[in-house]
């Protein structure tokens, strides 16, 4: 009998009372293990199982798994492991039989992954999760169950961290822990080996601080992590973990934002960014994460190597003020923005546009606008390149951003060169070419060339280009000639930018294509481009054909002379065209040497020139020959931008026509649609294919209407309306049309963050709109109600009217001697007393020059009714009949005259103030404000400064109603803006409110008062700085406490008795201005 058989026989009786399968598995187990184990070992193994069965009522289940597990262990498993398994099983079974079942069931498969040495550790992990209740037991069981899966992907050390994580989560929610455990193998499997540990470490921190985010982290974390460059992932996670440790709020949000942001940064830059963030982390973990989150935006402005400088500034701020530093890295501080601007090498058109506009205006003497090139291309009128500078005659278009060089000055210098070149086109009349106007340097060839009879050019320059069979070549040559002339004129007239221009020309020369690889005619043109860039030395040309080139160069160089005009450029174009046509457009086959031009002595060139001019009488324009390669235009020159004289002249002409049309005249040579179409088809300046997609007919039509719109002419295809009188078209409004929605203008203002001691740049959007109009009843009723007061106020204010000349007495100098002091003076002299010399009087002209902005709080709280000081019901007298009669009287009163609300009194006060102001004639504006959140500060105009008081104002007062919150700061700032536009000497801002400033996001939370009060205070300070006298008036009896802070050294008043407001306000105004 085998050892197994003996053991089975011996122990059979112990299985009595247990289910049959238990014995079966016992038998199976022993028989299977018999070959592997020594008899002693087998017996020990058997005993281990039997012991399990004895532990508790349900422990036979774990024993069953024990027996099953044995044979499943790998054959090479050492005996120690069997023993250990038995020990662990027994231990676990003592705690919970189901736990032991799970453990034993997955032990064999798990052991293949972790190896026998880690068995104890694995068992420990599970035990750690088990807290003695059924939820923890099921979690621990799940952990054991998932063993094979889990360890198929991760190492034991990872599992330790995972258990830590799960344990932490389980303290809050077992369901969450279970869910995370379920997804763990798959989630961790997607990560690279090295990332798992930090991923879990962060998870643990997250679980400790904001456990609810853990699920999100497990679900979404992996793709986020993968956005971070591999080698630095671990550091990123460590950093994030640090943040989580230090803070508990929205940790995952930070993690997610930062990871997203890193995804937008070049992978190679992740290292430096994270390193800089790590330096910030000890000071403020928020700052570190915000720094990463905002890195893409910052890196748009500065290069990666400048980022450290920006971070360093912020670090300094952070060290001195945590709040300040955090705002800095949140990009919510003006200081941060300034530093960014200083560091940034790039020049943004939006920042320098105004300077350039005035600069261009100074240069040209006409009103020039500056816009981004994209604006021009959007118009769809022939310009297609968004990156290049250009002009259409009234506006200079420039690229939006210039970041060609590594420092700001150089970038600005190049924008300036761009601008100067375009302005010079206007200053030196590139677009006022006249076909019949004689040139100054050449003998005019234009009249000698036969013009085609059937052409009907729209513009002078079109007529000129019509002379040429190859229009593209002519257009290119003309551009080169004209640009050469312009550049020379700039250099002659503006010594200051000569250097920058020369530098750009040199750079352009460096970018030119290799000339000797071009077909000959193109090479000719290319050489001319080089000459126009002041690069005669860069000309390369076959020595055998030197004449043509030398002549061309000489022609072009003449345009650099003082006094050269656009007509000279045209004449030069004619000559260059002929020279270009004299060379074939084919590639040079032979090994002929391409040489630079020999030094030419001026005389021979002049001679050549006159030769050229001399033949004029028999001038023939060449045409492209057969065998020529198709001509291609030379490469563009960046700083010169797009030059489109045909289009500009056309636009100018259309504009003129439109102006004449407006004046009721029809231009004698009004352009016809055919002319326009013809021009479009011919012109080399317009590439209709790239301009717009679609069939040609459509495209041309669209293009035409765009052009006409740009020029301000009514579109030609509006035939349907053409029989209507012109005036109808101009009014635009049709009868019965819906009233237009009020026009809302948005302004942006900074907001003061007292914690950071800095402004949050462009933080609040103030939306200004005229208030709706209601009825004027309210106004009239108020006047009636307060008739006596109105009369009184008027009288008082009339008295205030300044006498134009007020006599001032007792002056030491003046218009004349005043009698009384003069007599006293004489007496003093006679009595030997030292006399006072103040004996003159003079009239002093007093101009009352006052502007007042009146800001009305329209927050919801003004809806509150005012507790009337009517007889209150006396509680002590509890006779129900009396109460009832009191109540009935009160109701009746209320029905007859509804109780007034704060807003009603505000309105009444306004009405009275208007009466007063109209009497005295001061300039005033009345505004209401409310809104919700920083993006939506509503600012209502009841009466603007330049508006006349009238029916509209009266009707608008009616519509003043309580709306929402009170964000005072931006409203005050906007009122300051309004006031500073008036040129009054005395400017006053009166703020009428019913409580402290309060709004969503106006402070950390709704209950925080300091932020809002400090911002309001700062806004009032700004007013003072602008020379405006601010005055705050509140009807909030508790107003003293915050007004004291808000208006430290400024005037304020708490109107305790609310109902006296209408009376108080005009009086107050008087005292303010007298």
């Amino acid at each position, binding site marked *: 009998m085998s050892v197994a058989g003996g053991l089975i026989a011996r122990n059979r009786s112990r299985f009595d009372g247990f289910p049959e399968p238990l014995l079966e598995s016992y038998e199976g187990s022993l028989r299977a293990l018999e070959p592997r184990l020594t008899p002693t070992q087998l017996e020990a193994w058997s005993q281990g199982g039997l012991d399990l069965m004895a532990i508790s009522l349900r422990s036979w289940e774990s024993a069953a798994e024990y027996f099953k597990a044995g044979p499943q262990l790998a054959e090479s498993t050492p005996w120690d492991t069997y023993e250990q398994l038995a020990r662990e099983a027994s231990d676990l079974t003592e705690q919970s039989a189901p736990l032991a079942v799970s453990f034993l069931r997955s032990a064999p498969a798990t052991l293949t992954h972790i190896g026998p040495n880690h068995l104890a550790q694995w068992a420990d992990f599970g035990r750690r999760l088990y807290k003695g209740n059924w939820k923890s037991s099921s979690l621990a069981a799940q952990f054991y169950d998932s063993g094979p899966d889990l360890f198929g992907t991760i190492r034991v050390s990872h599992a330790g961290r995972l258990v830590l994580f799960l344990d932490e989560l389980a303290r809050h929610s077992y369901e969450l822990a279970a869910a995370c455990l379920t997804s763990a193998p798959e989630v961790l499997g997607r990560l690279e080996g090295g990332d798992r540990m930090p991923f879990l470490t962060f998870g643990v921190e997250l679980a400790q601080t904001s456990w609810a985010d853990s699920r999100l982290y497990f679900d979404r974390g992996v793709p986020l992590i993968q956005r971070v460059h591999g080698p630095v992932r671990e550091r990123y996670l460590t950093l994030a973990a640090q943040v989580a440790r230090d803070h508990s709020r929205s940790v995952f949000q930070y993690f997610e934002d930062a990871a997203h942001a890193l995804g937008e940064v070049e992978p190679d830059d992740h290292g430096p960014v994270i390193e800089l963030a790590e330096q910030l982390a000890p000071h403020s973990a928020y700052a570190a994460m915000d720094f990463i989150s905002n890195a893409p935006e910052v890196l748009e402005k500065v290069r990666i190597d400048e980022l450290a400088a920006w971070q360093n500034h912020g670090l300094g701020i952070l060290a001195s003020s945590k709040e300040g530093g955090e705002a800095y890295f949140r990009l919510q501080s003006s200081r941060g923005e300034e530093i960014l601007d200083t560091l940034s090498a790039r020049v943004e058109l939006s920042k320098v546009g105004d300077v350039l506009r005035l600069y261009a205006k*100074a240069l040209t003497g006409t009103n020039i606008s500056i816009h981004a090139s994209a604006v021009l291309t959007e118009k769809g009128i022939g310009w297609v390149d968004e990156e290049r500078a250009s002009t259409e005659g009234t506006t200079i278009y420039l690229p939006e951003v210039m970041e060609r060089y590594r420092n700001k000055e150089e970038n600005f210098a190049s924008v300036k060169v761009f601008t100067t070149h375009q302005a010079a086109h206007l200053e030196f009349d590139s677009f006022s070419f006249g076909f019949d106007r004689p040139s100054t340097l050449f003998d005019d060839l234009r009249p000698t060339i036969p013009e085609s009879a059937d052409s009907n050019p729209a513009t002078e320059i079109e007529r000129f280009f019509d002379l040429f069979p190859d229009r593209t070549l002519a257009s290119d040559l003309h551009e080169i000639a004209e640009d050469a002339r312009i550049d020379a004129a700039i250099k002659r007239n503006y010594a200051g930018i000569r250097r920058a221009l020369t530098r750009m020309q040199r750079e352009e020369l460096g970018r030119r294509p290799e000339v000797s690889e071009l077909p000959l005619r193109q090479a000719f043109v290319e050489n001319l481009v080089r000459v126009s860039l002041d690069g005669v030395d860069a000309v390369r040309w076959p020595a055998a054909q030197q004449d043509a080139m030398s002549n061309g160069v000489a022609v072009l160089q003449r345009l650099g002379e003082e006094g050269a005009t656009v007509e000279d450029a045209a004449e030069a174009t004619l000559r260059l065209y002929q020279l270009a046509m004299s060379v074939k457009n084919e590639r040079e086959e032979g090994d002929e040497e391409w040489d630079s031009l020999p030094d030419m002595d001026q005389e021979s060139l002049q001679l050549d020139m006159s030769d050229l001019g001399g033949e004029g009488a028999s001038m023939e324009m060449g045409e492209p020959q057969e065998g020529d390669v198709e001509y291609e235009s030379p490469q563009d020159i960046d700083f010169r931008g797009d030059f489109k004289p045909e289009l500009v002249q056309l636009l100018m002409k259309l504009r003129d026509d439109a102006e004449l049309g407006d004046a009721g005249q029809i231009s004698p040579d009004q352009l016809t649609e055919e002319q326009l179409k013809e021009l479009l088809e011919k012109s080399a300046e317009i590439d209709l294919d790239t301009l717009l997609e679609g069939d040609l007919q459509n495209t041309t039509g669209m293009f035409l209407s765009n052009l006409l719109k740009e020029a301000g002419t009514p579109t030609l295809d509006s035939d349907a309306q053409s029989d209507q009188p012109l005036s109808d078209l101009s009014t635009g409004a049709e009868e019965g049309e819906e009233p237009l929605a009020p026009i809302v203008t948005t302004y942006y203002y900074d907001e003061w963050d007292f914690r950071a001691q800095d402004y949050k740049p462009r933080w609040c959007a103030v939306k200004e709109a005229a208030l709706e109009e209601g009825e004027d009843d309210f106004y009239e009723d108020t006047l009636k109600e307060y008739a006596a007061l109105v009369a009184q106020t008027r009288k008082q204010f009339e008295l205030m009217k300044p006498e134009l000349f007020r006599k001032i007495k007792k002056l030491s100098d003046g218009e004349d001697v005043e009698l009384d002091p003069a007599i006293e003076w004489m007496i003093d002299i006679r009595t030997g007393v030292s006399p006072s010399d103040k004996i003159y009087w003079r009239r002093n002209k007093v101009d009352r020059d006052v502007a007042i902005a009146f800001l009305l709080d329209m927050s919801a709280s003004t809806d509150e009714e005012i507790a009337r000081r009517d007889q209150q019901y006396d509680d002590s007298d509890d006779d129900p009949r009396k109460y009832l009669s009191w109540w009935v009287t009160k109701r009746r009163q209320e029905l007859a005259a509804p109780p007034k609300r704060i807003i009603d009194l505000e309105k009444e006060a306004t009405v009275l103030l208007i009466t007063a102001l109209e009497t005295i004639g001061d300039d005033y504006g009345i505004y209401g404000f409310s809104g919700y959140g920083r993006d939506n500060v509503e600012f209502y105009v009841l009466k603007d400064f330049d508006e006349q008081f009238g029916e509209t104002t009266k009707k608008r007062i009616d519509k003043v109603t309580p709306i929402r919150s009170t964000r005072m700061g931006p409203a005050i700032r906007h009122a300051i803006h309004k006031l500073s536009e008036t040129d009054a000497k005395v400017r006053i801002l009166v703020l009428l409110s019913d409580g402290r400033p309060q709004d969503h996001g106006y402070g950390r939370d709704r209950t925080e008062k300091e932020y809002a009060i400090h911002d309001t205070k700062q806004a009032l300070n700004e007013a003072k700085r602008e020379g405006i006298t601010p005055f705050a008036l509140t009807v909030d009896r508790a107003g003293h406490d915050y007004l004291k802070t808000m208006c430290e050294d400024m005037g304020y008043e708490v109107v305790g008795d609310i109902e006296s407001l209408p009376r108080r306000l005009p009086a107050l105004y008087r005292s303010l201005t007298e």
Partner: protein
Amino acid sequence: MAPGGLVLAAEEFTVREEPYYLPLGDEIELFEAAFEQRIPVLLKGPTGCGKTRFVEYMSWRLGRPMTHISQGGEAPLDDEGPRPFVTVACHEDLTASDLVGRYLLDTDGTRWIDGPLTRAVKTGAICYLDEVVEARKDTTVLIHPLTDYRRLLPIEKLGQVVEAADGFLLVISYNPGYQSALKDLKHSTRQRFISVEFTYPTREQEAEIISHESGVDLAVSIELAKLGEKVRNLKEHGLSEGVSTRLLIYAGRLIERGIEPRRAAQVGVTWALTDDLEVQRSIEEVVTSIFE
């Protein structure tokens, strides 16, 4: 330049050296003709375009011994010596008594002293009221009887009327540009004067003036004049007044003294013109474009 330290009574001041003046048009002939006919003259033009210099020059010119006989065949103009020249800069507190005169207190009582206008009227000087609109309205009314056929100055406080001496001529200047609408010249006043308009000189003329007055060579002064021309393009667009020739001359003098042109233009033009940073920056760009 005149030697310092000399103290003169208002009516004794004469322009003895020929001031530099470059005629821009026919203003000299006009003024001479007006003077002969004793027609009061109003000079209009922007700040620093040479109005004061012109009057000074004319005062000197008319003070020269006259050689020609005026058209009417009358005798040569009255005097042989230099012509007295009285200038009053008007300000908004200038009162009638500031012009006419007032009583001053003396140990024994009061003493009357004539104001500058009275002195000019009495001595037959050219009286130049600079920036006349700045003065109070009552002063402008005061000059009415002086500027028509009467040529009288009533002195209310003395109860006197002074008849203008023969050489007396009233010249006022007025800058229509920068005064506010409130400070326009009343029609009853302005229609008593012939009006000579001054504009900025052309680039070449201005260069000549700058070169003469500051001593810089013509090449530099043409650049300065160019700067002036460009900056004047900005008038009404950030600048209420174009740069004056005077400022350009100052810049020229600084350059002459060895100051770097860009710096000279900065202190002499850019900063002198405006405090608006944006406009300053724009002018600065024009300066750096023109000067190396």
